[in-house]
């Protein structure tokens, strides 16, 4: 098959010593950055981009891509061990990963997330290799109405995210949606809720919000409660890292589902890994026979989001490489890196610069394998991290958060916002208002509004467009089914869930 021969040519390219070296550097740096809370792959790639100008385009791209997907491997580490996400998409892994860690299953959690990341990434790479052109065409055909319906489904699923009072969860979603309104309205150019501050014209920084709500708030919570997490001082043997057979059963299909959802969301330009992880988590919770376990250490709660995470970042390359349409901001930066070499990305890249394209694709796989080999032994190391007394750990984490958030926009106001959100998150959490729904609302809100209004403009104010377009209709139907399902479930549940607060 032609694809396979092209692929083998790609592997030839990717297996040269230089290519391997840069792949290794990229993925290692990516993992390291991913583990550190605050600083994310976008910032790192942007900061490393100038370094690639003097390299061959293939090597530079391999390294940058390595940073990109490598970061997704590492970001769950801090989530699981410290309840502080390494990046915004990893926030969801905190929900079940940290409880697992508290139950003494940190090693298992890390093992599961590594394997899940590998499977998710590989799944997306396979799609990229065999179906890229078809998928890219499919992805680009999504119009505003379709995007809206997908987001609506995601939002409805978000109501499952809260552990505890669903009303409080909904209130947090609304607050998040409202906070997403801050900035410039894209359909009219109107500045909303910016109070004359130019820094807010681009909206609230997602990293600042995520780090504040989950990072700073968590630290404040631990300090305030006075019971700082005590370290597990034993060395983790490989045996202890292995999940139980029961875990494997929970893992199998959740991982596949997560990969699927992640790839789907990832290949749509404009959506990001955050949405993918949230949706995968929500899907698992809805489909699970034991939803009450979620939030308390359910295996599916970490395997699906992690698979989705990695699948989405790999899948983002599909529209980028085949159509020249970057899947998200990070892709755009990488494409900029190609520009300076005089390479203009686009469909022609696959044919005229086949060596580059297939070399990069082959390096993805190699990179994922390297990451697997790299990360598994490091699990013991990371768990050891827990044995550092908390009083040394938390200033270091805060330090990383400060510089990490700063490095996104070189703007200290963002760090100030992180503190504000941290206090806000801490305060609301204490009173039973969860943070995860807020983050989801924040991410989804602007996208939903923008697409809804644009869909109406495109259809000349006809609401029928949402059901006329087949993709949109499908997702709306799924949303309706989900709603009906939830109400029936609620109705059959006994009233013991609905109690006045003591």
């Amino acid at each position, binding site marked *: 098959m032609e694809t396979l021969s092209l692929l083998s040519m790609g592997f030839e390219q990717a297996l040269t010593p230089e290519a391997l070296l840069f792949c290794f550097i990229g993925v290692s740096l990516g993992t390291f950055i991913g583990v550190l809370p605050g600083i994310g792959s976008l910032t790192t790639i*942007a*900061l490393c*981009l*100038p370094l690639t*100008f003097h390299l061959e385009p293939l090597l530079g791209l391999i390294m940058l891509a390595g940073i990109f997907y490598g970061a997704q491997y590492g970001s769950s580490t801090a989530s699981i061990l410290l309840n502080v996400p390494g990046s915004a998409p990893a926030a969801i892994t905190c929900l079940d990963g940290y409880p697992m860690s508290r139950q003494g299953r940190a090693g298992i959690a890390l093992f599961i997330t590594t394997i899940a990341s590998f499977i998710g990434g590989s799944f997306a790479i396979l799609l990229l290799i065999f179906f890229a052109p078809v998928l890219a065409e499919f992805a*680009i*055909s999504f*119009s505003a109405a379709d995007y809206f319906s997908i987001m609506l489904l995601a939002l409805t699923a978000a109501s499952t995210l809260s552990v505890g009072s669903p009303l409080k969860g909904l209130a947090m979603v609304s607050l998040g949606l409202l906070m997403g309104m801050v900035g*410039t309205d*894209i*359909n*009219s*150019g*109107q*500045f909303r809720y*910016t109070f*004359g501050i*130019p*820094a*807010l*014209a*681009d909206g609230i920084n997602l990293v600042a919000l995520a780090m504040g709500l989950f990072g700073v708030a968590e630290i404040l919570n631990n300090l305030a409660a006075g019971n700082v997490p005590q370290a597990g001082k034993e060395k983790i043997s490989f045996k202890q890292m292995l999940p139980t057979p029961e875990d494997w059963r929970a893992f199998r299909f959740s991982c596949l589902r997560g990969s699927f959802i992640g790839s789907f969301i990832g290949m749509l*330009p*404009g959506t990001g890994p955050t949405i993918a992880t949230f949706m995968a988590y929500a899907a698992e919770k809805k489909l699970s026979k034991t939803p009450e376990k979620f939030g308390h250490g359910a295996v599916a709660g970490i395997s699906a989001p992690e698979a989705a995470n990695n699948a989405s970042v790999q899948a983002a390359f599909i*529209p980028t490489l085949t*159509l*020249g*349409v*970057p899947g998200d901001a990070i892709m*755009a*930066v*990488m*494409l*900029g*890196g190609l*520009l*300076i070499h*005089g390479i*203009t*990305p*686009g*469909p*022609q890249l696959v044919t005229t610069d086949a060596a580059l394209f297939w070399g990069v694709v082959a390096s993805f796989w190699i990179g994922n394998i390297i990451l697997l080999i790299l990360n598994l032994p490091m699990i013991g190391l990371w768990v050891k991290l827990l044995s550092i007394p908390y009083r040394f750990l938390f200033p270091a984490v805060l330090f990383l958060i400060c510089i990490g958030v700063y490095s996104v*926009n*070189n*703007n200290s106001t963002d760090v100030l916002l992180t503190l504000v959100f941290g206090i806000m998150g801490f305060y609301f959490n204490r009173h039973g208002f969860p943070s995860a729904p807020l983050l989801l609302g924040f991410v989804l809100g602007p996208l939903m509004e*923008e697409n809804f209004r*644009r869909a109406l*403009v*495109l259809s000349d104010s006809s609401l029928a467009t949402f059901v006329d377009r087949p993709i949109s209709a499908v997702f709306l139907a799924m949303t309706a089914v989900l709603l009906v399902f939830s109400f029936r479930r609620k109705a059959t549940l006994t009233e013991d869930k609905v109690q006045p607060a003591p």
Partner: protein
Amino acid sequence: MISVLRLFTLMLLAISLAGCGSEDNVTAGGADTWPDKPVRIIIPFGPGGLADVTMRLAGEPLGELLGERLVMENRPGAGGVAAATTMLNADADGYTLIVLTNGTTITETLFDDLPYNITEDLVPVSAVAWFDLVLLVNPDSGFTDLQALLEARGDNLRIATINPGSTQNLSAELFKSLASNNATIIPYRTTPDVLGALLRGEVDLAIDAYTALKGAIDNNQARPIAVTGEVRNPAMPDIPTAVEAGITGFVVTGWNALYARTGTDPAIIDRLNADIASVLATDDIRTRFAELGVEARANTPQEMQQRFLSDIEKWRRVIEAAGIETL
């Protein structure tokens, strides 16, 4: 314990004050010794963007000419505030420069309350790059002529651009006022989204920078039917300018330029200008810029200043006419 804390805080304060005070307030020795250390160039955009790429490309040979490295510093942020603030904190010694674009002239009107005043605080050194916008249609649409398109679509014309407040979007507003008064402008977030809209046939026309869509044009994903410059784009000699196509007065050219702090020694500025001009005249830079769809052309500080002011005026009128809200 408290006293140790106090002591430490005092020490910290002392260090901070010392840190502030030790900044090099003495302007480095005049034009004769400039430059004798690396020169910072502040870019108000993220890496990989057009302004960033063109400056880096030109920065290398320029650095060689000057004898000192040029260090690029990316400081993205709305309204260019982050970049401008950094610039304003620097001394007028010629060791810190900033890249301004025509987008800056738009920001002057859009944001009422900026913490900086370009005309007072900064002086131009030279323009570096010039680029046009392109009007594109879907290749399957059958239109090769701007007038034909306008006639066929009339008031139903749909134009896709990127977000409001950008040069592209304001150009669309200008186009609308000069050509077809009831067209609908649909803003998207990024250029790839604009391209997607065109590919899907959601819109009839897309207005965006040539550089951003060069790949699409070369791939026949989008067909240009007019360029917005004063003269035809050398990379597409068959495509008429918008003026030639019948839209009188519709000329939009974007630019990047280097600026220095007001009060910088004029000799330094002259030296920079001369060096930039010679770098931009070299074949290597001209070709590499052309590959990006950009024209490398320097000008004098006076010309740049004039251009800056006239652009402010031009976009101010467009913003007011379109009724776009200012911050």
